[in-house]
């Protein structure tokens, strides 16, 4: 019947296993690809694969008046050649283009992972080098928890034990920059 080199009747991709391994953002892509493939898969499964075989001898015996017509039909039917065709080259080229895009995406991801692992390694090394929390000295608290502790020996800030935000604005520093008492910027000293 058909002279196709090879025919694909079912998909060789294990969709369920593939879906388990994907992250949610890639599952959306899988849904689209699977949808397209599923559409054609269902069409393929519903339609007959080959031309049915017709018993023309029995038909001739049953319909002797139309023997000539049946002969003609038989000849035509046996000479039918349904072309299978092949996938256009530009479509396959598009698949190759997508493969290149995917490789570039993977490369970018690997670069990001390398950077992230480097940062993660820094954090892990920091805490691996730290002494146990139970044996922290006072300078360790400032070093490892800077958001909660401060050291006035080398940090230029005003003690704020009640956390009213004295270090959040430069007003106090500007106010007491000049040692003179009650000095204001707009005061005129013309005595």
């Amino acid at each position: 019947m058909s002279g196709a080199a090879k025919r694909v009747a079912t998909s060789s991709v294990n969709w369920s296993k593939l879906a388990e391994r994907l992250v949610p953002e890639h599952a959306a892509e899988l849904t689209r690809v699977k949808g397209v493939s599923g559409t054609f898969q269902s069409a393929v499964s519903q339609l007959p694969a080959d031309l049915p075989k017709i018993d023309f001898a029995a038909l001739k015996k049953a319909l002797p008046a139309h023997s000539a017509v049946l002969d003609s039909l038989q000849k035509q039917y046996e000479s039918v050649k349904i072309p299978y065709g092949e996938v256009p080259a530009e479509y396959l080229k598009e698949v190759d283009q997508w493969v290149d895009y995917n490789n570039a995406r993977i490369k970018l991801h690997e670069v990001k992972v390398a950077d992230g692992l480097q940062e993660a390694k820094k954090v892990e090394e920091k805490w691996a080098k730290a002494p146990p929390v139970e044996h922290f000295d006072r300078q360790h608290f400032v070093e490892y928890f800077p958001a909660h502790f401060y050291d006035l020996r080398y940090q230029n800030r005003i003690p704020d034990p009640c956390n009213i935000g004295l270090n959040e604005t430069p007003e106090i520093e500007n106010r007491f920059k000049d040692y003179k008492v009650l000095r204001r910027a707009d005061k005129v000293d013309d005595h």
Partner: protein
Amino acid sequence: MSLSRCLPLGQNARVIIIPARLAHAASTQAAAATDDAPNFFQKLAHRFQGVPLKGEAHAPKSMFEDCNKEWSAPEPLPAIPKDFKEHPDRDLVNYPYPARPMYPPKSRLLMMPDSWFTPFQKVTGVSGPYLFFGGLFAFLVNKELWVFEEQGHMTVGWILFYLLVTRTAGYKIDQGLYNGYQERVNFFKGLIQEDLKEAVEFKKTSAKQTESLNSIKESYPTALKESMALQLEATYRKNVQSVATELKRRIDYLKETEESKARVEREQLLKLINSEVDKEFSDRSFKDKYLQNAIQQLKGLNVQL
């Protein structure tokens, strides 16, 4: 025998001796008999002994439960790792890391460290250091180098007060302080874990994404090409179905032609037969001939109604 001198035993004297053992046994039996229903005083005794009364799951807890108890931590502080170095050049032999001790160092008489006593101990024994420091103290007092002020005697009261507080509420104070310390340490550990959590989660997430991308790399080109091939196959099968349908239509047409022909012939034949039979019925001679025969046959049946 010694009591016999005091008793005026004479002719008419009557002496009755009651054995104490019998009374003791009787009282013991009485006490045993009333164990299930203790009286007021027995209840008090049970309370002080910590025995639960009838109907109680356990003895009631007293406010003096934790008095005169010495507290110790359920588990010691985690030790510094032996190879821990703050800096690669740190000398751990001469300058070990100053780890926090779990308990205060040992002291004598609540005020003198034990390390003052140990150098003497191997020469003079246990009492030597006490004599030394006592003698030193006596010398200082005698020479008026250590002068007591008039309020100094109140120190004794403070010492007694300290002992009273530590012996009664010391256990609970230590326990509360330890729990508070643990909470504080757990707070810091939580901060550390939160800092590490990002690193751990990044590793997990990146590993999953890497696996996902690799799966896509393996499967998608095949899936895309197969999708196109399946489309081709679907189109081919559609064409196959079209051809089969057309052939079936032609064959069905031929069959129907034959059936129609046979049906028309049968109808024509029936029509002819019916018309001829009707024509015969209308003839009078046919009617008379066959009607008489029918009547005679009916008479011959001899039917009785």
